[in-house]
């Protein structure tokens, strides 16, 4: 049971799960790598989106401040365009995982002739 020594609000104690320890891919480091590549994709998209906003602000306002970037509201057209780019990026980067592993050749298999 996990407890909060000094409740801050309306919380109570709770039962901590163990999902941080899951091993589904044969080795905990491979599991970690799966998480890392998805996290890196998210970080990269965040950077790309920030650049898009900066470019847009510079083009329309001629200046940029951190607050303008944070508060930027994309138009519906931009939202749709960026959503398509995001979808394409996910498919481009991760679709290799969809390959058929049933026909995967072992490392020491002979070269096809």
């Amino acid at each position, binding site marked *: 049971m*996990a407890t909060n020594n000094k409740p*801050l609000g*309306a*919380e109570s104690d709770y039962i901590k*799960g163990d999902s941080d320890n899951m091993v589904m891919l044969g080795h905990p480091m491979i599991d970690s790598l799966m998480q890392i590549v*998805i996290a890196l994709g*998210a970080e990269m998209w965040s950077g790309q989106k920030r650049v898009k906003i900066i470019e847009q602000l510079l083009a329309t306002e001629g200046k*940029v*401040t951190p607050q303008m970037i944070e508060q930027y509201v994309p138009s519906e057209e931009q939202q749709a365009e960026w959503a398509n780019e995001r979808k394409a990026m996910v498919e481009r980067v991760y679709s290799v995982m*969809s390959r058929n592993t049933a026909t995967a050749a072992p490392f020491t298999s002979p070269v096809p002739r």
Partner: protein
Amino acid sequence: MDRRTLFNLTGAAALASAMRPLAAAATETLPLDLRGNDGQLRRLPSLDVASNQEFLTEVRTWVQSAPEGLMRVARARAREVLEENGFGPRETLPVPQIIAMMEADPTLMASARAWLATQQLTWQGVKQLFDANQEACLDELRAAEKRGPGSLELNTGMHIPDYAKHEIHIQPGGYVGDPLAGYIYHYGTNNFFMGHNNQDEVQAAVAAGAPPPTQGKVRRILEIACSCGQTTVALKRRYPDAEVWGIDVSGPMVHYAHMRASEMGANVNFRQALAEATGFPDGYFDMVVSFLVLHEVPNTINAEIMKEVSRVLRNGGTYYPVDFFTSAAPPKEAYRRFHRWWDHRWNGEVWALEHMDYDLPTDLERAGMAVTKKGPPASLMRTGARGRPNLFATKRV
């Protein structure tokens, strides 16, 4: 205008300050209203964390439902695995036997692990953000406690049963253990709905589908296990003259639900209470609704909940439960049962596996309600009109 020209328009210092390190975003203290609203959803107070969440939603959507996504591929692979072991795709097999066949297959395990990674990263992102802004969140929660319209009843000393203390969906701290659980749940579950629920569209569809009693007015409505109050507010919008209540075992959830409802001007009432012990008088409500609750509690407790629902309903009152198996039968297909297993074991769905065997209609009948198996449509992921007929129950006169 090319990028070089654009960048020459402004000072390098301004750009440098705009391009802050991404890692800073999740741990930065920011005004909670910094980024304003998108409709009725307050935008996450960090562009970078919001962008992260968008991307994780996109990955989840690709894994879960894209035509060439991982789960479609995994499902096809599961059929091959079954065939290799001499079984047909629709054969009913015990879960341990399914696990033994499938747990070594890289495609099946990668699809599960990728999905779980998006889940872990989703929670991590929103929790870090709100934790960094904990004081501001707690301040606004406390400031809203006595604010109307509507009311809040926190019962912080109440006994919380162990079954409700788990980190359901691997949400850090679970529903009850984090003072900001309402914030974390609300923004984290937007990822679950894969971009289709930022304006509470699913909860609005549930409220729209809830069948009213055939006789008499709808004067009082209860949502049991209301979490952050999205369906409760939607019920009030459908029945603006009714007295509407939402109850939940989680204090942090109803705390957040009340704050959000009051900000939205919704005159609804929230109470921290168990679904099996609501504290309302006999026959008080005309309608009771629940959304995605039954699979989060043990079957034995569900039986108690059905008795309580029947007790607080007036004769002829209706109960509309929307959950995994209220509009569709539990899965028989081995791949889907395998999915249910890892969701149970590694996604904190502690009670979801035994829920596959839960006989809701029998418990409703035993509690004194008549069951209509094909009621208004409901869907867990999209608007109700696109769902299958969902069961509902009517308190016997």
